[in-house]
């Protein structure tokens, strides 16, 4: 019987240079402190010697463009390449020094996909889509110099309205937990992004965050009180800059009713950075 042996969620632009440019020395110190906690989480994940790491994250209009924007997509195949961008700027630049290819756990990805369709989740699939910083920044910080475990990248459409609901993301997480439980594998799982930043996806509001909303989400995760999270609306998430919390909702569905421990929370005048780990039985 398979088991989820590690579960964490974290911010996903893990680049001191980026935050130094955006927020000065405070930005550098904050992201470095957050990265240290994520690296420690990675050491705990590696100690489990898990067969696979499921990574739930969002695309930033890199893998998918306006020909198709899947609500939920499972990356299948044997390996996955990192997104390439000429003259990369901003959050794309964090990818530049990372390895170009990563192994996938083909069988687990296939099981999540195939059993998902049977269970009523109309998942998209991709053999070719590359993964961007939302996946690779946390994965690389977690693994450090250690070999990266086989990945199962899963995209949630967090940004291009209309997005899947928080409730549906949670239900998909429950599905992943059922697939893992019926499998022979030990599995780690992370969700990435957030916390509050870029409210209303407005360039003129870059620099604003909603710390009160973040504290509310954190309280519910710490207490294992997940019911209020199911009712989060697209409008609430959009106004508070919590778009990427949809990724976290998938993870919450997979581990509910586990309680979370906040390893790091730091406010910046651009984004509130966080690293959270769940207590698994």
């Amino acid at each position, binding site marked *: 019987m398979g088991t989820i042996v590690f579960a964490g969620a974290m911010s996903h632009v893990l680049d001191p240079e980026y935050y130094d440019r*955006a927020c000065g020395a405070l930005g550098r110190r904050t992201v470095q402190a957050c990265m240290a906690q994520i690296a420690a989480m990675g050491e705990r994940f590696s100690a489990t010697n898990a067969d696979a790491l499921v990574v739930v994250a969002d695309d*930033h*209009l890199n893998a998918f*463009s*306006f020909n198709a924007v899947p609500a939920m997509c499972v990356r299948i195949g044997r390996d996955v390449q990192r997104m390439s*961008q*000429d*003259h*990369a*700027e*901003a*959050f*794309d630049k964090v990818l530049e020094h990372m390895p170009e290819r990563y192994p996938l756990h083909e069988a687990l990805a296939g099981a999540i996909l195939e059993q998902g369709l049977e269970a009523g989740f109309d998942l998209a699939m991709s053999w070719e889509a590359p993964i961007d910083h939302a996946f690779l920044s946390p994965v690389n910080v977690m693994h450090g110099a250690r070999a990266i475990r086989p990945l199962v990248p899963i995209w949630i459409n967090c*940004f*291009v309205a209309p997005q899947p609901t928080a409730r549906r993301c949670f239900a998909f997480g429950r599905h992943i937990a059922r697939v893992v439980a019926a499998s022979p594998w030990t599995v780690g799982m992370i969700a990435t992004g957030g916390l509050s930043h*870029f409210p209303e*996806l*407005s*360039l*003129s509001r*870059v620099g604003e965050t909603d710390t009160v909303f973040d504290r509310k989400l954190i309280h519910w995760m710490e207490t294992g009180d997940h019911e209020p999270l199911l009712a989060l609306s697209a409008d609430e998430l959009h106004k508070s800059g919590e778009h990427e919390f949809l990724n976290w909702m998938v993870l919450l569905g997979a581990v509910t009713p586990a309680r979370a421990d906040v390893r790091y929370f730091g406010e910046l005048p651009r984004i509130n950075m966080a690293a959270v780990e769940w207590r698994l039985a």
Partner: protein
Amino acid sequence: MSRYAVNSLLYRLKKDAAFRARFVTDPAAAIADADLSDAERAAFVARDMRRINELGGYLHLVMSIPGLAGH
């Protein structure tokens, strides 16, 4: 206003380096065939990413087009 036209143009500017170079040289000529409103066209010609974002351009695109990104 066309969310598709604005964002497909932004995506092309990000991913197609040759098109981006033509746009930098002569923005009006580079986007002459794009199906844009007058306001959208004016914002692109002015390289005004804040305005493009207000007109429906996705934030992560307007923040990450090499050499043209808004911050």
